[in-house]
């Protein structure tokens, strides 16, 4: 009967990011969502609880406005939530997020399994999971497709480029999961309405240990642009021959 902590991130829904006419990114009308990969993580946690018993606590580090994210997470099945919020938590770096989560888990919670998504939908640095495992000093398996629990062990099937590695880890342990772990449910009406009735512990900066400085600093962000000189050709045979000749010269014909 493992007590599971599942971590999620409330991210900008990239479908709402627009480009201005000058090609810059426009965030003025963005909406937020639970990072897609973290929806898989929540689903995995809830299915494990349903299969083995125990409990699921959803946890996030975010800005205070992310209350909707907490409700969204709870509507997907967890029993309760820990919401660590501060206005300065908008652009945390992976190492800081992991440090905050780790500090809270160590000092206030007892759990046998921590589940994270493989990466977040915005930065996709894929670091919080493995960093958190190091901070907690527990074994970790990343990019996991399947989880089973066998006594005090977690059996995880993790994906590598050419093979799948099945590992057994003593609990407590941490896994990060791939979407293959299971399609997230679509919460029903009652699930959403009941979510706000589930217990939520809200923690602020004052409840936390000192947050480390980010060593990775973002010094610029721009819309990605491709600049290629497009040489145009027409349909007449001579032009087509010229086109094939150009391909030849670029060395891409085999």
């Amino acid at each position, binding site marked *: 009967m493992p007590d599971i902590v599942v971590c999620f991130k409330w991210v900008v829904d990239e479908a709402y990011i627009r480009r201005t006419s000058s090609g810059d990114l426009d965030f003025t009308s963005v909406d937020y*969502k639970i990072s897609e990969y973290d929806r898989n993580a929540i689903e995995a946690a809830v299915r494990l609880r349903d299969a083995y018993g125990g409990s699921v606590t959803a946890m996030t580090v975010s800005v205070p406005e992310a*209350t*909707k994210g907490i*409700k*969204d997470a709870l*509507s997907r099945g967890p029993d309760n939530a820990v919401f660590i919020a501060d206005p300065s938590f908008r652009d945390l770096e992976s190492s800081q997020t992991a440090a905050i989560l780790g500090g809270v888990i160590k000092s206030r919670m007892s759990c046998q399994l921590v589940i994270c998504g493989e990466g977040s939908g915005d930065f996709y640095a894929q670091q919080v999971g493995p960093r958190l495992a190091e901070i907690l000093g527990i074994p970790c398996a990343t990019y996991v497709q399947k989880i089973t629990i066998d006594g005090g062990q977690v059996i995880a099937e993790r994906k590598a480029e050419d093979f799948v590695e099945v590992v057994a880890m003593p609990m407590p342990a941490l896994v990060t999961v791939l979407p293959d772990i299971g399609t997230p449910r*679509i*919460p*029903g*009406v*009652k699930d*959403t*309405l009941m*979510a*706000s009735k589930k217990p939520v512990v809200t923690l602020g900066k004052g409840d936390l240990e000192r947050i480390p400085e980010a060593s990775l600093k973002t010094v610029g962000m721009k819309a990605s642009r491709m600049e290629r000189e497009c040489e145009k050709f027409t349909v007449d045979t001579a032009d087509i021959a010229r086109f094939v000749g150009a391909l030849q010269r670029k060395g891409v014909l085999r």
Partner: protein
Amino acid sequence: MNFKLSEEQELIRKNIREFAEKNVDPIAAEIDEKERHPAELFKKLAEGGWMGIPIPTQYGGSGADYLTNAIVVEELSRSCASTGFTVSIHVGIACMLILLFGNEEQKKKYLTPLARGEHMGAFVLTEPGAGTDVMAATTMAAKDGEFYVLNGTKTFISNGPLADTYIVFCWTDKAAGRKGMSSFIIPKGTPGLKPGEHFHKMGLRSSQTSEVVFKDCRVPKENLLGPEGAGMMNAMTGFDHGRVGISAQSVGILQAALDESIKYSKERVQMGSPIARHQAISWMIADMATDLSAARFLTYHAAWLKDQKLPFSKEAAMAKLFCAEKAMHHTIKAVQIHGGYGYIKGAKVERLMRDAKITEIYEGTSEAQRMVISGNVLR
């Protein structure tokens, strides 16, 4: 004033949108083409609690408000107007009438399976000679001891062929005028109740529409919904609720028309630039977006009034009138924006245009709405 939906309403909108994209979009063209009722889809809707949103949980519903129901009907209609409508009439009229006027036993016996989505409801009022003019109805319920015996033919009944529970309106005392009409809850399979001719429609084709015929149909008096003579009042209350649903359905159609028009006009290049950059097209889209916003506000306002337990009859009629006419107007424009491609079967805008027309007709024609509204403001 607060124009912001609650967090729950926003989340429910996202969830039903995701549900519709996954389960409704892929079949919408097919069920339109084949006039098929997608039972498998309604099973999934029932599982998520989408078939009884504003009904209290003690009667099998989800216990949300009426505005949430409108949002869900809108999002479903954005994918498939027939699906949105089927939910709308089932919840907005069949379930709501039993909730408002049924006794405890009726709520347990009939409302609970309806709100759970295990049963489907139908609203049985219109007759061949009685549309807007409800008083021209001829179906009679003659009292016979502990029973009423119904005779008559109802027509254009949505969910007619597949309903489990019919809410039926007929005269118990024709001479008493408006006070002589009563309403009954009649389960399917009651001897003498028979769905009649099935109609093939221009639009809204996967919604099942038929006649419902009563021939010496004996109904025990405990199936009377509300007191004898309350039928007309019940019907009008049903219309008020139903109209919010049709408004929401129209908003969904309008949103879909806008979605399709924006997508196509950005892709389609004519005379050297995407047609979205041609003023003739971009202005059509501007008008469409503006009317969509107005339509949505009217609809949500009517639903909000209902949730606040304030009078909403006039606002529901205004919303229905405006939303339906704008849906029709702009789906025609959406087809125009698509040019020849919009006239081909399989183009979503073609279906939207056919589906939009009915919103100006059923649950009170636009003319009937103007009667309600003018009656209200000229009082």
